């Protein structure tokens, strides 16, 4: 098992190298660098700019810069954010927590809606409920995240039930521990819904198919033959087995949410990595 994990991690290294290298290449192809706004200012002399260029190695080709950056990262130095005037490590740490919180709650929303819906759709197969939930799943799948986020902003502005953007209220610092949690949760509701609803559809479909398979399995027949109550058969015997394949989809779903968070964060003005 450990050897296997080790192998998988080793396989990650060329992938990470490739991705970061590609990003560096693309950044170097784009015009301008972080000194462009400084260059536009008249009161900064050419000598200063040149010395900064020297210091940061900006006049070297991108692969030299890349190797330098790589060396720094390996030794734990991510550098200093020019725009935010703070170390990148702190900046990422701060934002990452917010995005992580958002992704987790989106996941909770998605699974919390999708699993019961999927189970019910399978139990009452071909009923009106099944049809309606299938249609809703289609609709959720076809709704772009940013449009949903826009709709939520509209709702928040019109009803005043939810805050417009941000992760905390202005009074956040003066709240008690319980108040702080409630405040954060209040700010999380809309972004988490906007992010989570998109993945409800696919999870629900998988859940429905799994559950249908499980219901037809022999152990369910056995359980019924033993004279167990229908509720116990469904929710203990069938459900546990049907949920299994979803657990393995968990990691995949989570990484998808992390990258999908970008747009939702921008529209709902949530201070995460986006």
């Amino acid at each position, binding site marked *: 098992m450990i050897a296997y994990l080790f192998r998988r991690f080793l396989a990650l290294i060329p992938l990470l190298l490739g991705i970061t290298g590609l990003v560096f290449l693309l*950044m170097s*192809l784009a015009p301008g660098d972080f000194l462009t706004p400084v260059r536009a200012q008249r009161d900064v002399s050419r000598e200063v700019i040149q010395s900064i260029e020297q210091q940061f190695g900006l006049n070297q080709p991108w692969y030299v810069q890349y190797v330098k950056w790589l060396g720094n990262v390996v030794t734990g130095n991510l550098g200093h954010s020019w725009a935010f005037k703070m170390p990148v490590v702190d900046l990422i740490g701060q934002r990452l927590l917010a995005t992580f919180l958002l992704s987790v709650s989106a996941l909770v929303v998605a699974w919390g809606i999708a699993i019961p819906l999927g189970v019910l759709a399978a139990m009452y197969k071909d009923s009106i409920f099944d049809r309606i939930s299938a249609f809703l799943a289609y*609709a959720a799948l076809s709704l772009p995240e940013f449009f949903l986020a826009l709709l939520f902003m509209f709702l928040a502005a019109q009803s005043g039930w939810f805050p417009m953007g941000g992760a905390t209220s202005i009074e956040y610092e003066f709240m008690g521990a319980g108040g702080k949690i409630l405040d954060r949760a209040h700010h999380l509701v809309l972004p988490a819904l906007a992010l989570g609803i998109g993945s409800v559809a696919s999870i629900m479909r998988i859940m429905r198919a799994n559950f249908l398979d499980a219901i037809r399995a022999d152990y369910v027949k056995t359980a019924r033959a033993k004279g167990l109550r229908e509720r116990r058969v469904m929710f203990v015997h069938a459900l546990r087995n049907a949920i299994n394949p979803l657990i393995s989809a968990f990691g995949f779903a989570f990484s998808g949410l992390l990258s999908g968070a970008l747009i939702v964060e921008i529209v709902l003005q949530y201070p995460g990595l986006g």
Partner: protein
Amino acid sequence: MTSLGNIFKTTFRRPLGAFSGGLLLLLYLSAIFAELIAPAPTNAQDLERTYHPPTKIVWDGGLRVQAYELVDPSAASYAAIEGESYPLRFMGHGFEYRLLGLFKTDRHLLVCDDPKGAFYLLGSDSTGRDVFSRLVFGSRVSLFIGLLGITITMVRGFLVGGLSGYFGGRTDFVAMRIVEFMMAVPGLYLLLALRAALAPHFASDQMFFVIVIILAFIGWAGTARILRGMALSIRQQAFVMAAESMGQGPLTILRKHVLPNLLSYLLVAATLSIPGYVLGEAALSFLGLGIQEPSASWGLMLSEAQNVKVFYLNFWWLLSPGLAIFLTVIAYNVFGDVLRDVVDPRSQKR
């Protein structure tokens, strides 16, 4: 092996297929005949009628459009003037254009040709442009980006997947590592980075092509991978061997023997992945990185709705591009699903 015509015929016989297919046809027709349908050009501003609500249409011895007056300029609230309206003309005169780029005309489906009247089916935006007209013109970008992008993706996916499946061995290994790499990079970030790298080399009115290139660059990997697997299994078949023994080159075999067997899969995959392009363009334009003003696209129009004023003063009509995106995407998804059922009945839902 049924022919493409048969597949479409069966698809259109099913109620869902006919409905979604009909909706798509309607959308594409309105995109092609945008000038005929839109009452105003894309950029006709009217700074005295900003954020105008959708105008009511009344019947008074003919279709007439209700007249409005500005009540409160600071909140952009308009009120209908009782009993005052302007006539609407069916196939009336409006701005001049070339229908299909050929015939010079100034006829429009429904216009208000009274110079004082204003006809906004879906209201107006922050500079008083007709939202409905922009919606119709914007559909050109949003709808055709999908078709163009998917063509590029499918051709490239087929070439890479088909060739690596056909040759196997080292070609296959290298191609699949590249594909895996492409699939591992998060799409949205790659999109943003590519856009930053490509943008300076193109003028803003060529942005359409930049976006197509970017989206196609990202999308081909998954297709290539699946097609490779299918090409691998087709390669084992006797008819490929027969063609080889007759001395046909790999490209000929690919075109004559492999492609026809993959056609129905390609068709379904293409239909189901077009929504990705529509959404991708909308997201890019929404973030201000896609189509630029003054051109119109659905994503761009939505980004304009991202405004505190719009939220608080309830200018709901500015969200209509979102509905248009939604309808397009859902139509493609449903149509693709029906198509898949027709092509491959075994994969039918349980």
